[in-house]
């Protein structure tokens, strides 16, 4: 494993240790491809990555059009869970898939740390 890959794995490990997190991924924002992942069985990583990447691009354009700057954190709450995303400066998206009752503040903190590690 390369140094970068080891760093990514460590960052994802810290996210998935939060109670209620079912998986975490680093996704290339432009391509919607998985860079690194730690997911529980049953989560379609490639699909989540592709759709999160697409959503990130559209949100970025919407935020630019609205003149509100760059998005820092999104939290999509659904009936059966939540999707939490932090875009890193390098264009990597740090994505967490979580249970509905997860501690969002704690996950956000770990996502921000992982985003910092991802550059």
């Amino acid at each position, binding site marked *: 494993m390369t140094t970068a890959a080891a760093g990514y794995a460590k960052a994802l490990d810290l996210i998935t240790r939060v109670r209620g997190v079912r998986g975490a991924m680093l996704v290339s924002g432009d391509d919607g491809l998985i860079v690194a992942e730690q997911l529980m069985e049953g989560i379609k990583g490639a699909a989540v*990555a592709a759709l999160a990447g697409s959503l990130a691009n559209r949100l970025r354009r919407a935020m630019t059009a609205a003149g509100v700057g760059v998005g820092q954190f999104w939290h999509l709450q659904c009936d059966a869970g939540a999707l939490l995303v932090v875009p890193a400066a390098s264009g990597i998206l740090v994505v967490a898939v979580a249970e509905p009752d997860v501690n969002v503040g704690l996950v956000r903190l770990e996502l921000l740390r992982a985003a910092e590690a991802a550059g």
Partner: protein
Amino acid sequence: MTTRAVEAWTLEPLVSFVKEAGARLVLVMTSAGQVIAQHGFSRAVDVMSASALGAAILASTEEIARQLRQPPFAALNHQGEKQGIFLAAVPTTRAKLVVLVVYDLDASSLGLVQLFFEQLAAGLQAASPKEAVPKQVLAADFERELSDSLNTLFGR
């Protein structure tokens, strides 16, 4: 943008793929470059050249894989500044099909194209007629067959 097919069973999976993946241009063809369906092309000459080039590129990558003693590469992606092309084969009961996708980077992404290409491949495999074997196009009939196909693909 219109989607048209010479073989009607390809239309539904193709329309769904175009909608979901946000593809700009799509060609579904045989490995010989015979076009079965298209989306987004407005000129017959573009379809003819794109299908010939797509089939040739895939044939080249298959030969490279053969020389490396590897199974054929699953797909090929080439990304430019504003657009990308994605080329992959779909084995069906009738024949191996080749799909060429051109996508805009501001409307789609490689991840989306890959994701929905899997559905397109499954849709084409499921819809492919099981009983009929594709008709061989003889040299003597080639021009007429090509002309008929292009007329269908452009709704003439």
